[in-house]
């Protein structure tokens, strides 16, 4: 199976603090990989290093075998890598539909055609489809800032899929989402994975969510990989229980 993402010996230090300390892993095409670990273990820093938001101190990131270390986030996105953030990152003054169009517009045409072309960059139909898919239909014209936290989380996730990405990194998608919406979100992610073959890397604290969604799980502790395996293997790993699950 093709390796979509390959992370090799990644380090990130903030002064004397090693937030990420020699992490290596790879993600296969079509896989849903979970990354878990206690707060402050370096999960989000790892994502930010992979996605060009932070410059790694050492190590390499490869996408389809191509070195993309330190590549700018916008360029990575154009290569088919999308993400969500731990904290809500929608555009509050724009409507739900406008948020979704914005999320896909830079993948349509050129700078000039985006200036002279249609206002929606030809994305209204796709945005409507995504609105329906994520069950946000009644909110299409509402300002994103006025939505509930859970609805904004769904919108945030929907935005990550507007450009039809190959690889999606989701940072705590279930955080603060109620049980009903969480079920919807999981169902949507599974459907996109099955129908479009999109690959996911999911950081999450909600163990039920991770264990039921992911086919493989990596456990981080103090910036290092503590364990790796299927959800069942990870659950049974004494080191993991000691470091995280047992708390």
């Amino acid at each position, binding site marked *: 199976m093709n390796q979509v993402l390959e992370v090799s010996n990644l380090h990130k230090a903030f002064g004397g603090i090693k937030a990420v300390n020699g992490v290596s892993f790879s993600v296969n095409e079509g896989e849903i990989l979970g990354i878990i670990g206690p707060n402050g273990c370096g999960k989000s820093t790892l994502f930010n290093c992979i996605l060009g938001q932070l410059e790694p101190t050492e190590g390499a990131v490869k996408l389809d075998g191509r070195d993309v270390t330190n590549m700018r986030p916008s360029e990575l996105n154009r290569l088919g890598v999308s993400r969500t*953030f731990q904290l809500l990152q*929608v*555009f509050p003054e724009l409507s739900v539909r406008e948020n979704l169009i914005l999320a896909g517009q830079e993948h349509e045409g050129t700078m000039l055609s985006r200036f002279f072309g249609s206002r929606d960059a030809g994305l209204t139909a796709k945005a409507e489809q995504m609105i329906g898919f994520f069950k946000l239909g009644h909110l299409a014209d509402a300002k994103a800032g006025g939505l509930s936290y859970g609805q904004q989380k769904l919108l945030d996730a929907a935005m990550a899929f507007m*450009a039809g990405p190959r690889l999606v990194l989701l940072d705590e998608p279930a955080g603060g989402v109620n049980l009903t919406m969480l079920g919807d979100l999981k169902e949507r992610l599974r459907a996109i994975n099955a129908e479009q073959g999109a690959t996911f890397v999911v950081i999450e604290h909600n163990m039920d969510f991770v264990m039921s969604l992911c086919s493989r799980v990596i456990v981080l502790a103090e910036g290092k990989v503590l364990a790796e395996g299927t959800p069942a293997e990870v659950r049974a790993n004494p080191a993991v229980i000691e470091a995280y699950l047992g708390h």
Partner: protein
Amino acid sequence: MTAPATHSAAPAARRLPLPAFVDGTLLTLVAAAVILWFVPSGMGRYGTYVLSLWLVMSVAVMGLNLTLGYAGLKSLAQAAFMGIGAYATALLTSKVGLNWYASFAISGLLTFAVGLVLGFPALRVKAHYLAFVTLAFSTLIWLVLRNEQWLTGGVFGLSNIPRPSFFGLKLDGALAFHRFVVVVTFLLAVVLWWMIRSPWGRAFTALRENPIRAASLGIDTRMYTLLAFAIGSAYAGFAGALYAPLVEFIDPSPFSLSQSFFLLLMVVAGGAGYLLGPFIGALLGVVLPEWLRFAGSLYLIIFAAIVMLLLIACPQGMSGLLERGWAKLTSKKEGAR
């Protein structure tokens, strides 16, 4: 300072048999241009000059509204860019003998290029740090305008700046030149209207609201930051190119740092991030002091008090106030049905 960035298309426009791209903002611009074409009749030379000055300042404020109101980049150099445009046009038309249209284009291109260069610090510094970078630039330009007498005439300025003609028609009279300013302002406003409602406008808004998320969605934040600075500066250059023949004499004082603050005030008071905000802001900044002349030396104090009260009552400026009023009115009407 944030404001609704996408601009509501007036529902009324949708009911009329008009092309789909026509919205309330465009209709307002067309109606305003028609009214302003005729308004100065009988107003006298000075009244016409004040109206023209309002429109010229509106062009400069439109540019700053793009940079600050839409893209969220704090610039204190808009008057300096206006100065570059004004001096470039004055020198090219009065010393080189170039026609106004070519000078206008060169002024826009020159300020676009300088704005592009000044945009680079914006890629590294944000908010008040960026404001200080542009403040330094503003001071530098003012010193050049004042001290490089061989080029700019120093404090004595440049005089005898010719007014353009239009297909052989002389525009030397106040009314003729005012109508010319109306047409140029209208065209520049329409270009900006088109840009703001295009995906570019959405990207500028994303830059203001959340540049990190914008970058993660494939938006080239560097490119849009530079464009916002460069286009905003070009509008100041265009304003300068209109200002020089309007006043027919320029010196460094209207392009000082304090004038940049004044332009910033016009953006905020008019409503940052609203397409029609610059016209309202420039009306407050240019015309209101004229209306307050009856108060003699107290007029500046009254003007400052009005602006402070306005911003306390509505931090989103006059456009925000009008939008809130309109929303209340329409909700009442709907409730009554």
